[in-house]
């Protein structure tokens, strides 16, 4: 496990903080795009010999996670004329604290999971769990539908990180990509409808069904 991978993972964690910390939807989406690119290049440093599959995977991941989906979100943001503040339920500082705590917990929890010799030095498991957690934070503390989508993306990235540990079994990234594609694709459609019906993406409007 080359150290570069680890440093990329560190960067990944930092982007988590950035995405949760920024007050602006644009920069949040940019953060997601950055994460996508990081994940895109990550396989190079996991696998030593470059195969066609590797290249394809890198290109696909980088393109989808780093370009296509953020682009879609940007477009959605442009179409809907809403203020670009994130408007969280929970303030930024507490969110960041929670994120830090989550990361720490992830490190702790990862310790009791046995690893293969090859991966033992890596940060993969904790990074994956931490990213998952910050994805959850994004989903639960943000008001706008779009920022929830970004939260979901972060969560997916976390899963993807772990997926790389199972590079051998093709099935993994297929799963991830499929999930992302359909998930975000459908969400895009629904966002579109929401925009049409409610002329807003504020989920406050989306809490009429209740006891």
């Amino acid at each position, binding site marked *: 496990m080359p150290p570069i991978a680890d440093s990329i993972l560190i960067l990944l964690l930092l982007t988590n903080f950035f995405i949760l910390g920024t007050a602006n939807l644009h920069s949040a989406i940019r953060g997601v795009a950055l994460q996508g690119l990081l994940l895109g290049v990550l396989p190079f440093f996991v696998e030593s010999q470059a195969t066609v599959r590797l290249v394809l995977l890198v290109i696909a991941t980088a393109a989808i996670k780093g370009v296509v989906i953020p682009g879609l979100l940007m477009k959605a943001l442009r179409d809907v004329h809403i203020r670009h503040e994130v408007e969280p339920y929970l303030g930024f500082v507490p969110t960041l604290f929670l994120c830090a705590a989550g990361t720490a917990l992830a490190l702790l929890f990862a310790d009791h*999971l046995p690893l293969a010799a090859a991966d033992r030095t890596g940060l993969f498991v904790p990074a*994956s769990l931490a990213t998952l957690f910050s994805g959850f934070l994004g989903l639960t503390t943000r008001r706008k539908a779009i920022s*929830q989508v970004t939260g979901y993306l972060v969560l*997916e990235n976390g899963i993807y990180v772990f997926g790389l540990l199972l590079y051998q079994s093709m*099935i993994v990234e297929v799963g991830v990509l499929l*999930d992302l594609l359909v998930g975000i694709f459908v969400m895009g459609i629904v966002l579109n409808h929401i925009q049409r019906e409610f002329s807003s993406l504020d989920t406050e409007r989306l809490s009429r*069904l209740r006891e």
Partner: protein
Amino acid sequence: MAVYLIIVPLIGALAAFLLPSDRPRPWIVAIVAVIHLALAAAVIANGDVGLASEWLRFDALGRLVLLIVSTLFCICALYCIGYLRLRAERPNRIFCTALLFFLAMTSLVALAQHLTILWVAMEATTLATAVLLYFNQNQRSLEATWKYLMIGSVGIALALLGTLFLAYGARLGIGEPTLLFRDLVKGAAHLPAPWVRTAFVFLLVGYGTKMGLAPLHTWKPDAYGEAPGVVGALLAGGMTTCAFLALLRVYRIADAAGQGGFARQLLVVFGLLSMATAAAFMVGQRDFKRLLAYSSVEHMGILVLGIGIGGAGIFAALLHTVNNALTKGVLFLAAGNIHRAFKSKRLEDVTGALRRLPISAGLFLAGFFAITGSPPFGPFVSELSVLTAAMDRHRYVVAALYLILLAVIFIGMGSTVLAVVQGVPPEDAEGRSFRESAFKTVPIIVSLALVVMMGVWIPGWILTLLHAAARLLGGS
């Protein structure tokens, strides 16, 4: 031959999508459903194991789920003919296509022996149902769809991570990261415990969200409340059953890996918690479709409780899966009729349904008595069996809680259901247009008849199928 179970619906979906006019589409759905049921019957009859491949083949569990889903879908499809005729003002292209796609994917779930395929199929059902939920295309249904989609996707993502954990555990224990059900079970002994436990937690939360176990059920009342009755039936009887199947597969692996005790603990907790939550929300529930949603939560709870009790509980849970699906069919379809006739699903507007639509309301009432475990209906047998299993395993506290919760749920559900069906209907001309045509009632009656059959005379082959499935899960 088994592969046609997937291909036929897909072709049907394509046809439905390409067909220009709305009228004949419901018929396509119905025809495909009937063919599918026939195929399923054939598969189950001659014990066809499916493809040669290790990835797609039928075991007893798969056959059981296939049977449930195919039957329920056939009933719903026939009902759809009447329903979509009633809702002729809406375009039904997407709806019908999604229905058939849903059928294909559920069959795939039943067939899958590889955890990733299983997962992909579940994901696909999520999407199909999301489309179905949005049939009414109003703000409320949109909100419901949005919530369903978000929560469902998060859940399914967690399930994926859990699957990956299992694969990694396999890589450590067995040497290669297989996700083949058979290999995992065979090599389960070597799987490292922490990975199995963590994976089980993720998969439980993931598929539990799809099942709608409390506190992961939050999408259910909204979705069931806003969806057409027929979609509710398919969700409550079909999709949840598939999710339960996925959970069972995972449980089997955990059990084989020596984590059975841990898994059963979690399942018992989830089961009782779901029943308790359902009870709390049923008491004083003013919306009879949301009521059914909570009833579904309750019965998912009973299912996992049965598994969590283990032993004879597994058989009981599987039996209850069948009964629950069929009874939910009755309840949701009848509720759909009442909803359509009164143009409302709140108690404020809906009373005296027995007077306005005797058949549907009567069926609704019968469904209520069935689902709360009165003979001569199927759930009576299965709910009693769950209790028996609990007592045999000396889980007296669990048994006591189970009984008390059943009592509370009966009270809560009954007060709402009776308020709907009894009394004098409000005097308004609106909704009088609704007619209880054959298509809108006969399928429900058939479904009820099946429920009665399950309570009075369970056919031998179903019993053998159930026993085989239970044995597969290490039950008796």
